[in-house]
């Protein structure tokens, strides 16, 4: 088993290299698409094989580490030497992530064959997507912080490349740059955290660090700093407050990119990282509070913005930010496996929703404004039904997947020793908003009157696009069965599977087994009621009595405009951070330091030498007599000196 682990990572790398180098020569789209999807598919199969093998082992034996080659060796500092190898660690958590990445990734690659048909950069797209899968797998399979960081940066790079895929449009380039810069700001936190880890534990390997951490007692300030700094990195990568602003703009990229990177995988890297470092967070309850609070505030904040957006992809983007907030909420209340479970179900239904929106955009010839849609149900039946399943799943209606995962998070937010009823209330409000805006999205896009012109003939997408939609719909519908809690007579397979990974953290947090209490059922019923209520409200507002939306947006126009303009956060950042930096760079650093000081010194010294020379060169008159004058003068001096000397 160990020997084939590296194959998971190497297949997409091979795909990237092959398509990157030979892509322009291959004219056959089907071939490129087959290679691009095939590598990811092969990775998935290898991951499945490893998973099945792991199932047959004892839970204690399921972790395996394989080292490929040493990377950095013996950098001797005051804290000792650092040696890092490129090594992969397969345990319950990382194989689950690898399955999600390769499985959903494969479906999205297949979908892209249809979606990107006819694009000039078809080969470039698949090359970048394979590179992304490679980097993401490095991230989740890493056995030390540095390889994880390699993957972390790699996915950031691929995000930039893929958001800016249609680089001819200026806005796309700006959006890609924005994503990269904000990621970088977060990465500063990650790097500092990583350095602190090395300074504290003397190593960057997860095994070494976490086993050393498990014998410490909670409350040490260094650990608090480490966890907070790593979380800063997570806010950048996983789009939480305050570094989330890149994700809505990232919708400028092709829809499969939005589905893969900005819904199912890259943005979940921060959640995975917190889960991986669960023992460190367990040692710093303060950080966990921060994580939970930031998560739940982001959840409701983003949901409120999503209520009024008119671009189909922007609604889904804010929805993603919001759902990521729920995952962090879970991490913050020590419901680690619930957070990962939600990560999994979210990957299914968010990818489904994005791919579905791609089918809609494709059908509407690149129209993305839902105000210009309506009634598409008749024309796009498969898209419609799969989209509805995704929407119902995210809203949290049982028995679809989202219900089980989100409900577990909300329950743990309420009941955990590290949760509170306040967290539950905010989370539940967010769930209500989620149900409402998803209902709004479905009703405005697919139901009701057709608001588009007669020259648009929407047609259903080709099979390469609809088959992945159907598969994801099945997963969104039944994926929840992996995590049916004990209170509903389930075995909660996910929690059971991930148990050994999070046990050290649970021990440290002194969390024990909980009995089933009646409050759990109450909250469950409330969740369903909230979800159903949200959808019903959306139905009333947008289908039954269509005047309400306009009336409300007129009555509460300031609030409406604030929401529509995303609370003016982008404008605030621009004024507070971007403009001053640009101004300082322009006025002081460029015109002041660069032009005056540096250029002045270099050019000035040249001018000085030049001026001096123009004076000195006048000695060379070219007239022989003036040289003779100097000559004679010298003789006179010499003779005088000799005469004086002899006296």
């Amino acid at each position: 088993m160990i020997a084939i682990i590296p194959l998971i990572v190497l297949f997409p790398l091979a795909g990237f290299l092959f398509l990157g180098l030979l892509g322009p020569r291959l004219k056959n789209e089907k071939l490129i698409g087959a290679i691009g999807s095939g590598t990811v598919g092969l990775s998935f199969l290898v991951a499945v094989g490893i998973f099945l093998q792991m199932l047959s082992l004892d839970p204690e034996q399921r972790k395996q580490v394989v080292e490929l080659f040493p990377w950095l060796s013996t950098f001797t500092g005051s804290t000792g030497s650092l040696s890092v190898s490129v090594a992969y660690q397969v345990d319950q958590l990382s194989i689950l992530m690898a399955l999600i990445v390769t499985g959903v990734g494969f479906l999205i690659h297949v979908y892209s064959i249809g979606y990107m048909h006819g694009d000039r950069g078809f080969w470039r797209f698949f090359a970048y997507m394979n590179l992304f899968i490679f980097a993401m797998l490095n991230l989740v399979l890493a056995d030390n912080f540095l390889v994880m960081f390699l993957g972390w940066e790699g996915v950031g790079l691929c995000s930039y490349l893929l958001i800016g895929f249609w680089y001819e449009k200026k806005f796309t380039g700006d959006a890609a740059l924005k994503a990269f810069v904000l990621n970088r700001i977060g990465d500063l936190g990650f790097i500092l955290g990583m350095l602190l880890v090395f300074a504290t534990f003397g190593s960057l390997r997860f095994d070494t660090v976490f086993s050393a951490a498990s014998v410490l007692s909670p409350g040490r300030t260094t650990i608090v700093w480490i966890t907070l700094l790593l979380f800063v990195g997570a806010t950048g990568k996983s789009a939480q407050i305050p570094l989330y602003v890149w994700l809505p703009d990232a919708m400028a990229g092709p829809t499969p990119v939005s589905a893969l990177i900005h819904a199912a995988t890259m943005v979940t890297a921060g959640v995975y990282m917190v889960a991986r470092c669960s023992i460190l967070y367990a040692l710093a309850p303060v950080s966990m509070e921060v994580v939970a609070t930031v998560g739940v505030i982001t959840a409701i904040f983003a949901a409120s913005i999503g209520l009024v957006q008119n671009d189909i992809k922007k609604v889904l983007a804010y929805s993603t930010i919001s759902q990521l907030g729920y995952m962090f909420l879970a991490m913050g209340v020590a419901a680690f496996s619930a957070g990962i479970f939600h990560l999994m179900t979210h990957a299914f239904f968010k990818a489904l929703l994005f791919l579905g929106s791609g089918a809609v955009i494709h059908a509407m010839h690149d129209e993305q404004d839902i105000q210009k849609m309506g009634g598409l149900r008749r024309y796009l039946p498969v898209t419609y039904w799969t989209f509805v399943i995704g929407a119902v799943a995210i809203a949290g209606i049982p028995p679809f997947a989202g219900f089980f995962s989100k409900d577990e998070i909300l329950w743990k937010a309420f009941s955990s020793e590290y949760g509170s009823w306040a967290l539950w209330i905010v989370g539940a409000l967010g769930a209500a908003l989620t149900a409402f805006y998803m209902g709004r999205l479905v009703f405005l896009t697919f139901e009701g009157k057709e608001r588009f012109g007669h020259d648009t003939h929407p047609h259903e997408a080709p099979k390469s696009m609809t088959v992945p939609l159907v598969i994801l719909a099945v997963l969104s519908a039944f994926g929840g069965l992996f995590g049916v809690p004990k209170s509903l007579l389930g075995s909660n397979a996910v929690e059971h599977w991930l148990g050994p990974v999070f046990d050290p953290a649970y021990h440290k947090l002194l969390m024990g087994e909980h009995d089933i209490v009646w409050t759990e059922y109450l909250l469950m019923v409330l969740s369903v009621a909230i979800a159903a209520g949200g959808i019903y409200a959306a139905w009333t507002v947008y289908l039954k009595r269509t005047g309400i939306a306009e009336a409300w947006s007129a009555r509460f126009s300031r609030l409406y405009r604030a929401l529509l303009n995303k609370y003016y956060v982008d404008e605030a950042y621009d004024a507070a951070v971007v403009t001053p930096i640009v101004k300082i760079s322009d006025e002081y650093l460029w015109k002041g330091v660069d032009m005056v000081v540096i250029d002045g010194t270099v050019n000035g010294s040249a001018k000085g030498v030049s001026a001096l020379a123009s004076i000195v060169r006048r000695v060379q008159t070219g007239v022989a007599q003036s040289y003779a004058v100097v000559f004679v003068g010298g003789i006179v001096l010499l003779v005088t000196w000799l005469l004086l000397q002899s006296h």
Partner: protein
Amino acid sequence: MFMIGAVGVLARRNAIIVFMSIELMLNSANLTLVAFSAFLGDSTGQALVFFVMTVAAAEAAVGLAIVIALFRRKRTVNLNEINILKW
């Protein structure tokens, strides 16, 4: 006499006059040699004068050849105007 010749070399513009001054310097040296030879009764000085005159003649020939070559190029014997080596 030597100093007069030296100043003439340094200050006069016409190349021919400069040569004249050079000859003047040489002749002043000759004169000094002969005078002291007579005064001291040693004929070594007079012998040396022969050599000096020979060299002076040869040098005058070569120098005038250079002046002619220069004149062919620059059409002038005004030394102030011959500044091809100028920066």
